[in-house]
Each structure stands twice: as C-alpha cells, then as structure tokens.
C-alpha cells in the first residue's frame, strides 16, 4: 500500500502490521496528550509535585532523555569532526542517521514535556526575552532550543531522502546541498549540546544551598557541568546502539555491521571509565570533604526508598561494572556482555539524573526538616510515556520510509 514510499531494495513488514504498531503508539501518545492537556487546563495540582518536590518526573525524564539523546551530537562530532583524524571513526557513518533521528526525537520530545512542567506556559517565552544570564536554566532553555533547531535541520535531509520526496528535483537539490553543510551543523550542534548537557548538570550543581546537589572545589565550579557532559557522551551512543540492536531484533534483519557496535563499545568503554574515575573522585570529595563542611554525613543523604542502594547502583553496578566490561576487547565480543553493559550504562545515567533531581530535594537540609517521598501521578507518567511513544513513532516511520542504514541492503542480501 505504501510501497512507493519505502526505500528501494529493502524489505519492510506488511502495512497492516505496521499500522497496528503505529496505532498502539498513537494510542499512548493520545493518552499522554489528554493528560498533558488536563495539566494545562486544570493546572499542576494534578501532578504528584508539591512544594518540596518542585521538580519531579517531567524534569527527570527530560534530563535522562536528553542525556541519552546525546548520542546524536557525539556521534556527529566523532563522525564529522574527528574521523578526519581517526579514520576508524568513519565506521560510525553506518549508524549516524539513526543517531540523528534519536537525537531529534529526544530533544523535541523533551521540549514538549518542558512546556507542561512550567506553571505558566503562556509565559514560556520570557525565558528568552527576560533571561537571567546567571541562571543555569536560561542556558538550558537557549541551548535546548538552538540544538533542537539544529537537529531539525539535520533531520530534514533524511526526510528528503525518501524515495517519493526525492523525486521532486528542488527537494533533491536541497537534500544534497544540506548534506554538504551537515558537518557545520553537526559541529555547531556539538558545541551547543556540550554546553547544555553541562548546564543541565549545572542546574543541580549551582544550588549552593542544597548540599546534595551542590559541587565545588574540583576544577571549575559547578563541577557537575562537566560530569553531566561526560556521562551524557558516555551513554548517548550506547543508547543509539541499543535502539539499533532492538530494531534488529524486531525487524529480524541486520542493520549495521557488528564492528560498529564494537567500536561504540570501545568508545563508550573509554569514556565511561574516564567518567567513572571522575565521578568516584567527585563522590569522594562530596561525601568526605564538602558535606562535612555543611555539617552533613554521607548517611544523612540516604533514607527509606532513597537508600544507599541508589549510590551503589549508579556508581557501582551501572557505572564501574559496564565500564570494565566495555574496555575489555574480549568482553565486547560477547553480545550479551556488550549490550548488557550498554543497558547498565544507560540505567546508570538515568539513575544519576533521577538522583540529582529528585533525591537532591527529598533530602532535608534543615536539621528539623523531614524526609519526603515523591510519587508521580498518572498525569506525569502519561505524558512521559507518550514522549517515549512519540520517539518510537518517529523512529519507526523514519526507518520504514527513509534509508537510515546505508548497509542495510547489503547486509540482508
């Protein structure tokens, strides 16, 4: 039915099956949109947020999804920027399109959820117009917006490569000329993205009256700026790879060469190890140097559901462990270990974003203050799930109708 839209030489599942899948996704999106509309109309009392938990599921999901979407800019950076010097990085070209799509959906999805998060969406543009240059959030707003625009520009040529669209000559020319300048955009995007991953880290790190989140004393303040960049680039490509793997499983096809996965594994292994070293140093500094200065002990930060297990999970099981796996060339050979490590890696960074958002404010600061527990409501869960469904939807459509994987035809011959 949609034969003419499907790229040449590739096989796709039958249209009815695809429609069914799309309908499911649309259902989730519809549910999320309904919940989001309810929040916009009836205000934020529908959420599980309160005066203690000013930030909740929306922000956590945004931070996590943006970190994971970092695969786009970092792969782009490696491919367009560094591959001139390190030819082995050319391999990444085989997955770069998917990385761009993933980045695009993550960022646009995050922006949509961000609109729900603020109490006065109609004044959202104040962030640009009345910006406070000191605020990390201002940086976030600017960078996310700019980078989302960059991603749109990067995504458009992919759309233009659709068989039907590229029949139109001006479109083909446009696509071609956009491809030529893609490197510039990719590098601009890299800069922007580095910057805002950092500012997202800064959002927590600059709260100098929140000892859980505040970081200073190591390198440049706020130190979390760099930790967030590192953690994002050490997990974003892993996320892209994992999505690719998932697509391979679902479509029962090979989409990229295994060497690509192993290359990503190698890069991520190195970065993650570096990140872990810094993170451990940071954690030690925070726990044994900074906190005592604020009159707090490490155990003061952990209580009830927000137990020490979070730290162990984040830094140990989902940090050091995948790092060790990924730097070992032998372990990378095992699919189980390779993709298992990718999974742990992205869980680790998600926990990090959760901890820096939710736990940072759950932990009482005043001695006579009490711990509180945050439970998101369905009005928060639904839009977040809808955002994920939106990601899946765009990826599905892109995969079906655009030549995302240059090697797909060859690999499945």
């Amino acid at each position: 039915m949609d034969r003419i839209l499907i790229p040449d030489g590739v096989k796709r599942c039958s249209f009815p099956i695809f429609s069914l899948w799309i309908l499911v996704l649309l259902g989730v999106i519809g549910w999320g949109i309904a919940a989001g509309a309810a929040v916009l109309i009836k205000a934020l009392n529908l959420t599980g947020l309160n005066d203690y938990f000013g930030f909740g599921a929306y922000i956590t999901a945004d931070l996590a999804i943006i970190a994971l979407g970092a695969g786009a800019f970092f792969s782009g950076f490696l491919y367009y920027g560094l591959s001139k010097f390190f030819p082995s990085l050319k391999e990444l070209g085989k997955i770069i399109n998917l990385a761009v799509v993933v980045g695009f959906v993550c960022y646009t999805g995050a922006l949509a959820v961000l609109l729900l998060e603020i109490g006065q969406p109609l004044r959202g543009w104040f962030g640009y117009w009345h910006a406070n240059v000191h605020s990390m959030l201002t940086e976030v707003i600017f960078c996310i917006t700019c980078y989302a625009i960059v991603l749109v520009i990067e995504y458009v040529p992919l759309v233009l490569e659709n068989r039907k669209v590229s029949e139109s000559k001006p479109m083909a020319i446009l696509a071609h000329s956009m491809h030529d300048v893609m490197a510039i955009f990719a590098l601009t995007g890299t800069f922007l993205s580095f910057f805002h991953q950092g500012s997202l880290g800064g959002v927590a790190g600059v709260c100098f009256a929140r000892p859980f989140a505040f970081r200073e004393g190591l390198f440049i303040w706020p130190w979390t700026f760099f930790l967030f960049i590192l953690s994002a680039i050490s997990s974003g490509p892993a996320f892209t790879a994992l999505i690719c793997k998932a697509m391979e499983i679902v479509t029962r096809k090979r989409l990229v060469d295994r060497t690509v996965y192993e290359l990503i594994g190698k890069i991520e292994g190195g970065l993650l190890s570096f990140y872990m070293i810094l993170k451990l140093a940071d954690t030690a500094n925070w726990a044994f140097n900074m906190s005592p200065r604020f009159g707090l002990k490490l155990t003061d930060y952990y209580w009830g559901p927000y137990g020490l297990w979070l730290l162990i999970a984040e830094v140990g099981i989902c940090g050091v462990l995948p790092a060790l796996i990924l730097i070992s060339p032998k372990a990378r050979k095992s699919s189980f270990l390779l993709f298992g490590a990718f999974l742990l890696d992205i869980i680790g960074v998600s926990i990090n974003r959760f901890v820096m958002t939710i736990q940072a404010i759950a932990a009482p600061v005043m001695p006579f203050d009490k711990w509180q527990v945050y439970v998101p409501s369905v009005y928060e869960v639904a839009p977040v799930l809808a955002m994920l469904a939106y990601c899946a939807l765009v990826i599905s459509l892109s995969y079906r109708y655009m030549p995302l994987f240059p090697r797909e035809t060859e690999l499945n011959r």
Partner: protein
Amino acid sequence: MQFAAGAVGGTLLTPLPWKLADDSAVWSQNWSWRPSPERGEITKVPSVCTLCAGGCGIQARLVNGNRAILIEGNPANPVNEGSVCALAASALQFLYAPYRVTQPLKQTKKRGDKTGFQAISWEQAQTELSKKLEEIRGEGPHTVACITSSRRSSMDDLWAQFFNAYGSPNLFKMPSECDASKSAAQLTTGNSSTFAFDLENAGYVLSFGANLLDGCAAPSRASGALRRWKKDRYPVKIVQVESRASITASKADVFLPINPGTEAALAMGIAHLMVNGANYDAYFVKNNVFGFEDWTDSNGKKHQGFKSLVSSSAYTPEQVAKITGLEPAKVRELAKEFASQPKALAVWGTGRADVSNNTYHELVFVALNALKGNLKPGGLIGLAPKAPLSELSAQKDILSENSSQQPRLDLAKSQNCPCPQNGLYGFLDAVSSGPKYPIKLLMVHEANPAHCLPENKLFAAAAEKVPTLVSFSSFMDETALQSDYILPDHMALERFDDVIGIPGAPYGYYAVSAPIIKPLLDTKHTGEVLMKVASTLGGTVASSIPWKSYEDFLKFRVEGIAKAKAGAVIDKPIEISSIKAGDPVTSNYSDAADLFKKLKAGLCWHDAPSAVTFDKTTSGKLELACQSIGKNAQSSDDVIYLPHFAPLKPSGSESEWPLLLVSYSSPRVSCGYLANTPFMNKLIPDSMLAGDELFIDLNPQTAASLGIAQGDQVKIKTTQGEAGAKANITPAARPGVLYIPRGMGHKAYDEYIGNKGVNACQLMEVQLDPVSGMGTVWATRAQLRRV
C-alpha cells in the same frame, strides 16, 4: 504556497504576532477569574475585640470606608500593646463568612433540616417571638430559658434585666473557668468576684495546670506576662505542673509531669511541707485567716482546721508522690523553692478556659497562696475590681413576682449543692429528665452548646424536650441549625458591645467595642431585639428596658463610671501592671458623654487593682474553713469545710477502660462559640489533622503496648462515646493518657470549616462538682485500638 510564504513573512514584520504573544502573557497576569481588590482610600478604625474575653484593642483597616481588609492590634491598648492573636487576625473571615445567617429564618420542616429554613422579615420574626413570649408569660414566665455566652459584657446584664422583668430565673451562661474562681472567692472572702493574679509582677510562677500559653481565657495578657518573665536580666522562673508537655510546659523553666487531675494533691503536699516546716507567712495567716487552726462554729461545735488537715499523714511528700507520680524529693525541692522565693505566685487552671474546676481544688490553691501571704493587701493575688457601671434594676409586675417563687430549674434538682453557681449542666439535665416544670422556649445567644459544650449530647437531649428553640447566632452553627428560629445578631465587628474586666486581671478594665463597619447583612443587634420585644410586651418589662438602641444602653451604663468619677481613660501607652492596689488613678474625662466618646474611639478605661477584702465573711477573715459549705452539707465530716484533694472519679472501671482521655486546647484552634477560620486551618499542624482525620496524641510507650504505629487508624471509645481517628505518637503525652485537641469536628458551617476531625466534647465526661453543682471536666476513661 508563495502567498502563504509572503503572508508569513509580512506578518512577522507587523506587531501582530509579537503583540499577541505579549498579550497572552499579560492576560495570564490578569486572569479575569482572579479577584481584583477594589482600590481606594485606606483608613484605620479603632475598636475593641469581643471575640474572646481577652479585651484587646484592635484597629481595622478599611478601603473606602466600606470594606474591611485587616484587623491589627491597637498600640494604644495596654493589654495587647498592638498585638493580635491568630483568631483576631482572622476575624474578618467571620465578618465575610459564607456561613453567616443573612436574615431571620424560620424552620418549616424537621429541626436540623437546612432546606427547611424559610426567610422571614424582622417584623415577622420579632412579632412571632414577642407573641410566643407573651403567651408563655400568661401561663408562667419561668418556663422561658436562655443560654448565653460567658464573656463579660453588658449583654449579660441586659439578659438578666429582661429575665428579671419578664419573670424567669432560668438564665444560664456557658461554663467558664471563672465560675470556679468565683465560687472560691465567694466561699473564702464572701465577695462575688473572681481572683486576680498579678502575673506581671510575680518573681516566681508555679502554675498548677494553668494553660497560660495554650489558649487561656485572656491570651494577650498571658503573652504579655511571658514577655516580661523572659526578660534578659533576672528572668522569672516558671514551673509548670501538668500531665502533658504542653506549650506552657515547654516555655517553663521546669516541667513537673504529674498524673492528670492531681495538681491539687501536689499543692497540698507543698502546703504540708510549708506548714510542718513553719515556712509560711505566719503573720498573715494568724491575723487574717480563719480555719487554719481548729475552729468552733456558731453552735459551739469544734471542727478540724486546715493546719491539722494538711499536716496529716495524708499529704506527706511520699503520699503526694504516690498520687501525682512525682518523686518525693521533687515535691520537697519544689516546696522549698516555692516557700523561699519572694514574690512566688501559684496560679492554677484546668488547662481549659471554658469549664469550671473542682471547687475543693480551687480552695487548695487559694490556701497555698494564703500560706505564701499572697492574699494580703499589695500581694500578688487580689480580687478583680468591677467597673462602677450603672446598675440595672428590673421592675416587677404580678406575673414576675409570682414566678419568682419558682426555683431555678437546675436548683430544683441539685439543691444539695451548698454553694450553687451557674448550673447549666443541672439545668440541661433537669430539662431532659422529668423537670419540675417544662421549658417552653429556649433562647441561645452567642453560644454553640450543640458543639462546644463538653458532653454536648446533654444539650441535644434537653433541646428535644423544648418545643421552641431560638438562636441569635450570626452563623449557621450546630445550635443554629437545630433551632426553630434564627434571629441573626450582627457579627462582633458590626455592633456595639463592651468588655467588663479581663479574666484574672487585677486592674479594673472597661472598654466599648464600637462597630468598625455598617452591618453587611439583614441582621439585628440581639440587644435591640430584646428592647423591641420588651416594648411589645409592654408594662413593667417595657419600662425595665427603656432604651431604643444598644448604644444608648451602653451610654447609660457608662454614666455610672462618670458619676463615680472612677478610673481614667488610657490615652497614651502605659505599663498598666505598674499600678498597685490603692494607687490613685485620676479621672481624665469631663463627663459621661466625654467618657463615652473616648471609649467609642477605642480607648479603654482602667482603674487601680483592689486588694482582697474579708469583711463580708462570717469571721471577717479569709475563710479556709468555709462555713457556708456547711449549710446544706449532708456529711458531718470536718473535711467538707476545708480545702483538700478530692478528685471526682471518672465513671467506668480501670480494667475495662485502661486509658484516660484528656482534652487540650491549642492557641491555633478556636474552641468556643466561634469556629476555626480558614486562616487558622492553615496553622493546624499535620500532626493534629490529616484531611478529615484527627490525631489523638499518645506516648510511644502506650502505643507500643497497644501495637499502634504512627499514623495508624484507631478507634477511640470512652464511657461517653466513640470515634475514629489517627494515632500521633509523641513524647508530649504521658504514658497511659490520651490527648485530644478541642474545637475540631464541626458538622455545620461550610467545606472550609466542617468535617475536620472529631469533636472532643462528644467523648468527654462531665462530673458535677459537689460544692457548686457546676460541671467539671478533667479526664474520661477510654480504650483505644487499631482498626
């Protein structure tokens, strides 16, 4: 497509999109459903607060003279010195309450049915009330009764005047802590007044359960005293004796935890040690106290004196320790300290402002202060002086003369009390259980007995027997809801009223509360309704109440002060507690009109304290052996004349009801006639209320033995009733004792006020004091279990 591109490009160059974006933001800043307060000239109007008996000076801020926006303290007032309490700060929420009664109502369906209220005109309301009163008067005027507030206001006297002229003795007040003080003052000094405490000048304060900071009868004055006690240099030591680690206990320097209701035993123990150690004011006792030594009555019969009673083995530190739960050494230490401290004052209370105390216990505290010499002239305890207001005297006709033969209904039953006082409980009891004569019409004014009278079911039972119930409430409260007629009074800020003295204050005080604003609704001053009704009834009733307006009536009352040339108006800030008994206070007003003008402008009148006089007693001394108790006594035991520890046993057995339930008041919860305000709801901690669930406080030890955890849903059952609640485990509670806050659990009003927790009054047991016949409340036997 090109057209669209051009249009987009062009539009971006016009102000349209930018102006719309800006306007949408501005729109969000001025949403039409967000109220926009009317602007205008802001003025301040002084007045005096009558929401409780505290007598604070207030001032209201008005916009354009017709919209009150804030109640503040009046800095010119010596009692509150510019401060306000949470209740007064939110007083406007009563004025603008959605649950106000907007006009006279008549119940046309079953009592309590909100939909049955039919709006009637004042003309009709007053005519029907007058007609009823006229009819009943012919059959016997004593069958009309009234329950009014326990504030000290000329309204009380107007009611009394009306009832005297009309011919019914059945006028009752809601119970008050002062009732017992009045009884004790009557018995020991022969004066019909209450004891007054010079808190501000005390050098050491020993408080036997007085809830000075937990919502007492005169909260502003207590707060002012605390401020003076907590001065930087030589602060005053405060010792709090009670069972709960209350706010007062926490602010005190020493908290002595005792079993609930055993304060008087400890006082006896201290007296025991003072007497045995000859460490008391022997000179004062010898010359001014009767009954300290053994005494002989007019029949020549010899009786035991207080000295021999208190020094007996019943009140040794060991015995007292056993009763109170304190260590004997603590009792000794306390006695030594109290006896040796100059200017040591013992104050007392039941921990609540709105219920009477056990008379014998009241006498014990008087005795302890007597031993300390505090009742001598210039001492720390005096008698509350009275403002010399014009007296009222009712003219009587044949009907009222005849009916005055009829006994007051409470007395008809509890005639055994030797010293009967405001017997509301006796009255309610009599009405509901075969009275000597029926009550045909019951009026309720400024009171909400259906909710805030401990053991409130007694009121419900009595109300059932009364064919016509008339409420004068400004609000649709629980009692108004049960009434056949509601003749709404103005809200306190809309009407003339006055404050005659401050409970427990040694200085004379009088203030007029002038309206801050014109009445908002179709309401009428109850005083003026009485005047109208009286004039309709005609004859001596009309001539006894000749005033046309309540303001005229107050003018008449103030004339008395002017005539006596007594006291002075406070027109500049003074330290009122520095005036000693007998100090001259020179009047600073020219005549009655001038005085009233000043009072109306929010200034208050004051007079020097008055020392305790004993010339009205049989012996001409302070009677520790209260001879008047003997008159109706059934027992011939000598102890009945003397102050002693005589707890009234709560009903039920300890084995069946292993716990005690004690109610407490909080300054953040209004627990009298006035319900809480939405502002005050914000102040209620989440350890007291969660949604509509009230927390009952219990000690961790008690909780452990009952297997109850923090926040558990529990069922509390007392000998009086049961209710569901949540458990709040706190070391503020004494083991074995449960604590419940008062003032919660309203069923009437609106969604902001109603259905919050449990009404303590439905769980508490009232016991009648054998001396005064008044209801006392201290503890109720209870069970608690997790559900």
